[in-house]
């Protein structure tokens, strides 16, 4: 009330004063220069000082504000009049007055109630536009500030007719300011970014106003922000070195907590642009994400920001962290589609894109469910396949097993790049899988497995015809197997086995074991590595890489295997063992292959050995030993290796399963075996070069192991004995004796192994022979063979569990 009174008191002198003042004002049109001018015009005129340096006349501004508040219907006319005055002043380059007019409009805007603003806003925005159109940076910046102020007001009446495209166009243009003065340029760019931020805030929440997500707008806004963001690095480098470029992902959160104005005052264009980008992405709904991402990708393409990809990674991280979580999958999808679009680009670009993918894919993994997971995996695998196919046509068709190595040797730069691309894709796959729950990892492993080109069934069964079959294989199959198994391995390493039966469902285990006999040794190696990572629950892998007899010193972590594990071992143990055994026989095996199989067997033993399963393990050992003794095609060094594996595994079995006789046996044999082992090792290293020379030692070894062979058999019986009754014990002895009888057999036949033991002469070894020659050896066959040669009831009673399957 006091204010009001004061207002009326001063009405008269004020009025006179204004008349006087008007007459000196060159901007006044003479006809209006009278006391009859409308009151609002007089009030407006009065806020301008004589000298623009004096600034807004505060008292009079208060009067104008009060008038506007008490007569809101006049607000639009006040706005219009202010605008006209300002236009005139701009034209006459009297910027001081322009600034005052703008300030007055700002104050009115803030003071007045939202519902009255609608019409006033029109004049206000025309005023802003007018200022933005001027070439004067100062006015442009001023206009932007006013615009931002306006943008922060929540209007309650939508204005359907209001269009923002000029503002977006102009602000975007300002974001690219190339003003000669560095400071001024920064100011203009900052203003541009703030302006865009304002437009986004103003429009995004209201569906009725302009659709900011239209490509015509996004194609301006997004590149403008990115253009400023990409200078981040150089800016930071020059100025404070405090913040690391890469670790800069989440810093703006603290900024946002602060007063908005303050932040914007102290920001540099890159930081502000980044904040604005987060805001934009954060507000994007599902339908709008692509209209943001499209210009992002285009910008990165056009500005060649994929190689190196630091900025691309930075940008996509920002997007991933800002986007509403449920849509993050779309970003991955879009980026993959971009990879498709770039299928003809240089491998370096593709590698970079895939790398970006791998850096952000984990963020999406948490949100991906159901089919989208497999979609992502499938898409990655498709890219891998394409990449492999791209590589293949330029190559000589594969003929030999060493073909992969020869490729690596004969590399040109391009295929090295291509391989890097594949690595990047595999990494992305691994990253993605790493963040999925375990049950999905199994699904993924099975999915990948289903994509691996399998060697034909006959191929495995008939080793002799392998070369024949190889010729019919599609080129690149081996390479694709290789790549896909690498991916599988990557996923496998992220998986933690709890129960074997969940890790190895039959539909996964079966193809995996089949692949373990693939013609390509590198593929076989990969399969073993996959088995390692999946079998090794107790982190014994490092300790079991090489065969050793000092098992006790390895400090292995052993745990009694659980009931489900035993069931698994009984069900699938034989198949796994037989595939291990067969793997060892593959002709192209390198020392690495053999060692890898050893490790698998050793890990299986460490994880699964117990009273129930020990027989199977021992059987595996015997069959390996048999191979070492009888196989004609293996090189001597290969055989020595097999022997050393058998020794080492035997000690491991004894160590893992505390059955006294077995342990005893192992201990008893220890000193002698140590010698043997050392000898083997020595011979091994020699014999890689001069294979023929070791014939004497070979014979020696055969001798020794043939003895042991017999003992093993006895052991098998003894083990069983413990679980069976006395009667069986009796039968056992018979069986034991029978086995012992095979010892001399082999002893006498000293000549080269193949002729040493014909399958029929010794039931025991014959059995093994049979096993080896049939790919999916079953215990039934074993039994069958025995039936024809040895006392059948003994065996049948001894190994009752064998007949269950």
């Amino acid at each position, binding site marked *: 009330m006091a204010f009001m009174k004061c207002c009326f008191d001063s009405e008269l002198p004020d009025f006179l004063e204004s008349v006087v003042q008007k007459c000196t004002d060159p901007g006044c049109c003479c006809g209006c220069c009278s006391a009859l001018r409308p009151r609002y015009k007089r009030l407006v005129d009065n806020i301008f000082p004589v000298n623009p340096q004096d600034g807004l006349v505060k008292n009079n501004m208060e009067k104008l504000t009060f008038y506007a508040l008490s007569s809101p219907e006049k607000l639009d006319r006040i706005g219009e009049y202010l605008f006209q005055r300002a236009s005139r002043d701009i034209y006459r380059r009297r910027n001081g007055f322009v600034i005052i007019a703008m300030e007055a409009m700002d104050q009115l805007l803030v003071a007045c109630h939202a519902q009255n603003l609608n019409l006033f806003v029109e004049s206000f925005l025309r005023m802003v536009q007018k200022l933005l159109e001027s070439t004067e940076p100062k006015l442009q910046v001023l206009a932007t500030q006013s615009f931002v102020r306006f943008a922060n007001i929540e209007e309650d009446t939508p204005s359907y007719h209001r269009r923002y495209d000029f503002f977006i166009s102009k602000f975007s243009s300002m974001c*690219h300011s190339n003003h000669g003065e560095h400071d001024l340029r920064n100011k203009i760019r900052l203003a541009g970014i703030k302006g865009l931020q304002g437009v986004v805030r103003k429009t995004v929440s209201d569906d009725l106003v302009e659709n900011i997500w239209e490509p*015509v707008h996004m194609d301006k806004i997004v590149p403008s922000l990115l253009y400023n963001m990409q200078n981040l690095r150089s800016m930071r480098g020059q100025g404070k070195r405090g913040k690391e470029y890469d670790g800069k992902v989440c810093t703006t959160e603290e900024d946002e907590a602060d007063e908005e104005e303050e932040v914007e005052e102290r920001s540099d264009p890159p930081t502000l642009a980044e904040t604005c980008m987060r805001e934009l992405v954060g507000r994007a709904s599902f339908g709008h994400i692509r209209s943001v991402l499209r210009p992002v990708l285009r910008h990165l393409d056009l500005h060649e920001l994929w190689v190196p990809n630091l900025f691309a990674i930075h940008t996509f991280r920002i997007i991933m962290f800002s986007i509403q979580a449920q849509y993050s999958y779309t970003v991955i999808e879009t980026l993959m589609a971009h990879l498709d679009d770039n299928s003809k680009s240089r491998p370096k670009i593709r590698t970079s894109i895939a790398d970006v993918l791998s850096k952000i894919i984990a963020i999406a993994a948490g949100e991906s469910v159901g089919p989208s997971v497999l979609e992502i995996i499938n898409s990655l695998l498709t890219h891998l396949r394409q990449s492999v196919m791209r590589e293949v046509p330029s190559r000589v068709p594969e003929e030999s097993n060493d073909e992969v190595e020869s490729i690596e040797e004969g590399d040109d730069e391009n295929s090295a790049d291509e391989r890097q691309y594949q690595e990047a894709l595999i990494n992305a796959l691994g990253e993605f899988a790493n963040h999925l729950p375990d049950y999905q990892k199994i699904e993924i492993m099975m999915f990948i497995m289903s994509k691996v080109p399998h060697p034909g069934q006959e191929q495995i069964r008939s080793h002799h015809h392998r070369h024949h079959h190889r010729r019919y294989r599609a080129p690149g199959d081996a390479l694709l197997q290789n790549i896909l198994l690498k991916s599988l391995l990557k996923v496998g390493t992220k998986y933690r086995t709890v129960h074997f039966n969940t890790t190895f469902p039959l539909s996964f285990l079966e193809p995996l074991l089949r692949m373990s006999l693939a013609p390509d040794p590198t593929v076989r190696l990969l399969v073993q590595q996959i088995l390692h990572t999946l079998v090794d629950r107790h982190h014994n892998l490092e300790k079991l890489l090489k065969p050793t007899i000092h098992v006790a010193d390895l400090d292995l972590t052993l745990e009694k295997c659980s009931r489900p594990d035993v069931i698994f071992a009984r069900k699938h143990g034989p198949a796994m063992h037989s595939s291990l055994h067969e793997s060892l026989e593959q002709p192209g095996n390198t020392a690495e292959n053999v060692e890898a199989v050893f490790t698998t067997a050793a890990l299986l033993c460490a994880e699964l050995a117990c009273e129930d399963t020990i027989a199977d393990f021992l059987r595996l050992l015997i069959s390996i030993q048999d191979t070492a003794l009888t196989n004609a095609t293996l090189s001597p060094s290969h055989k020595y290796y097999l022997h050393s594996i058998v020794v080492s595994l035997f000690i491991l079995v004894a160590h893992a399963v505390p059955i006294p006789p077995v342990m005893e046996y192992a201990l008893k044999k220890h000193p002698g075996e140590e010698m043997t082992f050392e000898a083997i090792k020595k011979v091994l290293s020699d014999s890689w070069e001069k294979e023929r020379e070791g014939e004497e030692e070979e014979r020696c070894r055969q001798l020794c192991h043939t003895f042991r062979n017999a003992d093993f058999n006895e052991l098998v019986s003894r083990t069983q004995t413990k679980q069976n009754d006395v009667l069986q014990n009796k039968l056992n002895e018979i069986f034991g004796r029978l086995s012992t009888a095979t010892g001399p057999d082999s002893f006498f036949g000293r000549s080269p192994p193949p002729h040493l033991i014909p399958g029929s002469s010794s039931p025991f070894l014959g059995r093994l022979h049979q096993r080896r020659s049939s790919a999916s050896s079953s215990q039934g066959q074993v039994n069958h063979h025995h039936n024809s040669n040895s006392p059948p009831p003994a065996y049948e009673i001894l190994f009752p569990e064998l007949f269950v399957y």
Partner: protein
Amino acid sequence: MEDYKFLFKVVLVGNAGVGKTCLVRRFTQGLFPPGQGATIGVDFMIKTVEIEGEKIKLQIWDTAGQERFRSITQSYYRSAHALILAYDITSQPTFDCLPDWLREIEEYASSKVLRVLVGNKTDREDREIPTAVGEDFAARHNMYFIETSAKEADNVERLFMEIAAELMEQARSKELPRYDGNSPSLNGRTTVIGEGGCCSKFS
């Protein structure tokens, strides 16, 4: 005062270095900036001209010629009433790129946009593209044609004035609503010349 009758948006495109910015500067500010650097993104100028006693406001968007800014520059084509496609008469490559530019215009601009081919730098002695070749190209692609020199201020004024006149003619013949200083249309869009977005607001 905002008392113009029409507002038209003119967008300049063409290879880097053909003199787009100089043309705009010459026209809007009457000067020829020596050693003009490459435009970054998009530049904006305004000029009000008078034709047949009517005030016409020209919003001129001067785009960067460099390829890397193509994504942002293209987004300005859509709302243009007139597109000036400029080449340098002393540089065959800038002329050779014209078909590419036309493809872009086809793709991003309105089909009704007024297209003007401009051969700039007539002040230079080392001409590579004869006037007739430029004329021929323009005729084949249904464009207006003019040769200019931003440096000598030759034909620059005429270029923009003719565009303004032509656009005004079009606007009148279609009886478009006039731009009125009091109209609430903020950007002074004269509705449908070369853009059909007006009615889609509610969708």
